[in-house]
């Protein structure tokens, strides 16, 4: 409770939580305010922002509603960001736990694989994966997870290495528990907190990678994405820069919200530990 209190008292935490809340509400309410397909034509092409109040942010080259796009884009960004981060953290935590707990050859092999994934630029890997598999929401999520799981794996391994020497692990061994059961029931849950501390950074990175992929035309073609909207606006960057700028602002504010909230969470929990 103290941690929550501290979180809400820090201006960063409040701003971050506020931003995230706004975008979450926008994402959830998109189907109610704009029930029509955001990819469909809503009016004349290239209406500027703040000119027609039924289309407050204007329309793009094909006459699609920019505000509807931004609201529906929030759905895609947040869904992909959270799903990819969850997948990356889950996969990384499992690999890290196996490596740290098994030790020896298994550890060596898994760590070399982790290192190989860190050596290949994550974005290039995601790009290659999506281009081989074909663009879809699932492919994008997996591609981002492929690029982002190494951090959680390393942190989980380091944590497991210290936990596996503790008494309750030894007693579980003596009690004859299966090593895999010990690893995943006793060790992994205790190794999780520092891994979860990475989640805000990973969610933010995932949102940014998704945006970059869809900017390059590798997003799910049936969904509105902010990256796709920015790319779409590029063609008329000189005459209608707002088409690229508005979705970009939404992107920056979302990522900033994630970072701020994440930072405030880490600080609040660190302070709590400091008191105890």
């Amino acid at each position, binding site marked *: 409770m103290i941690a929550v209190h501290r979180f809400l008292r820090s201006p*960063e935490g409040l701003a971050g939580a506020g931003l995230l809340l706004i975008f979450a509400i926008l994402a959830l309410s998109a189907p109610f305010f704009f029930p029509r397909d955001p990819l469909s034509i809503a009016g004349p092409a290239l209406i500027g922002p703040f000119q027609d109040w039924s289309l407050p942010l204007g329309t793009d080259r094909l006459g699609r509603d920019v505000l509807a796009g931004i609201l529906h884009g929030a759905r895609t960004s947040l869904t992909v960001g959270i799903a990819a981060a969850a997948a990356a953290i889950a996969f990384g935590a499992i690999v890290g736990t196996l490596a740290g707990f098994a030790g020896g050859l298994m550890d060596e092999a898994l760590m*070399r*694989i982790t*290192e*190989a994934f*860190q*050596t*290949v*630029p*994550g*974005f*290039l*890997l995601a*790009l*290659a*994966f999506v*281009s*081989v*598999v074909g663009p879809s929401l699932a492919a994008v999520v997996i591609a981002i997870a492929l*690029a982002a799981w190494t951090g959680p794996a390393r942190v989980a391994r380091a944590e497991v290495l210290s936990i596996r020497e503790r008494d309750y692990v030894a007693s579980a061994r003596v009690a004859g528990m299966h090593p895999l059961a010990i690893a995943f029931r006793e060790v992994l849950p205790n190794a999780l907190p520092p891994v979860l501390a990475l989640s805000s950074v990973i969610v*933010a990175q995932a949102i*940014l990678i998704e*945006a*970059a992929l869809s*900017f*390059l*035309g*590798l997003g799910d073609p049936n969904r509105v994405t902010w*990256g796709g909207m*920015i790319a779409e606006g*590029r063609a008329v*960057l*000189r005459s209608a*820069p707002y088409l*690229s*700028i508005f979705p*970009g602002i939404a*992107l*920056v*504010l979302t*990522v*900033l919200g994630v*970072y*701020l909230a994440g*930072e405030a969470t880490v600080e609040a929990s660190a302070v709590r530990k400091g008191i105890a």
Partner: protein
Amino acid sequence: MTRTLLLIRRRLVTSIPVMIIVIIGTFLLLEAAPGDAVDAYVVSTGGDAGLIEALRQRWGLDQSPMTRLATYVWALLHLDLGYSVTFSRPILDVILERLPNTLLLMGSATALSFGLGSLLGVAAGAHPGSFRDRFLSIGSLALYAVPGFWLGLVLTVIFSVQLRWFPSSGIETIASGKSGIARALDIANHLVLPVAALGFIYLALYLRMMRAGMAEVWRLDFVLAAKVRGISRRRIVLRHVARNALLPLITMLGLQSASMLGGSVVIETVFSVPGLGRLAQEAVAGRDTPLLLGIILVSAVLVIVINLIVDILYGVLDPRVGSGEAAT
């Protein structure tokens, strides 16, 4: 000197298995890609079923996966990355032609972000908790949230479209006939916006790391010891606190090289810089999977080399490196 050799040896020993895993990974992706090299070749040049069969046999594509992997590795050992259909040229040639532009872009962006980022980090970390510190720290977090490609577009709108200060695309003026210093200045002029777009995000990263590192060093006893010896605050900040906090940044330099290569894909695309990243985008657009995987392999080698250089640099800057492991 022996310390440096030890570092190089250690890095190489771990790099070989890593490279093998990367090669197997790219091979698997190549196998998973729809169609094979022959399909792609025939699409671009035309040919009948007989030719296709003959080509499959000649390139060993009718063999078992293990044999194909062996052929693939054997070719890589001979620096043969295959043939690019989109460019109708050997992949390695295309990549080597584009590599210098990317290295120039990355090098400049690294210099900008590391130099300016660590300086601002020192400015923030010199007085922890001050207004300047809070301002820089929030500002850098905001900057860190900005996607590079969007920043590139915004910079284009402001500095290229509105102010007309810098060109918005390319690496140099085409067919300008410039040479020597005039050409270098022309290239520099073209690189200002892409370097800013690529570098600013990392600038925020280095600023934050420097600031956090300094906050940690401030708490160490030797800083108190320097204070009680009467060393000036300026000297303590620069020569002791910042100097110690710089070390983790050097490591980060190596770790971020892979991320920066990835970032250059979008930045080069935005600014039409004919580099490795733009090439990757072109490979995706042209469904040229072998070319894309060739770029990945070369990038991995590049990242390993950069990390090796960073290791050596770190060894120079931190006298403690290697002292405990002389026996190994």
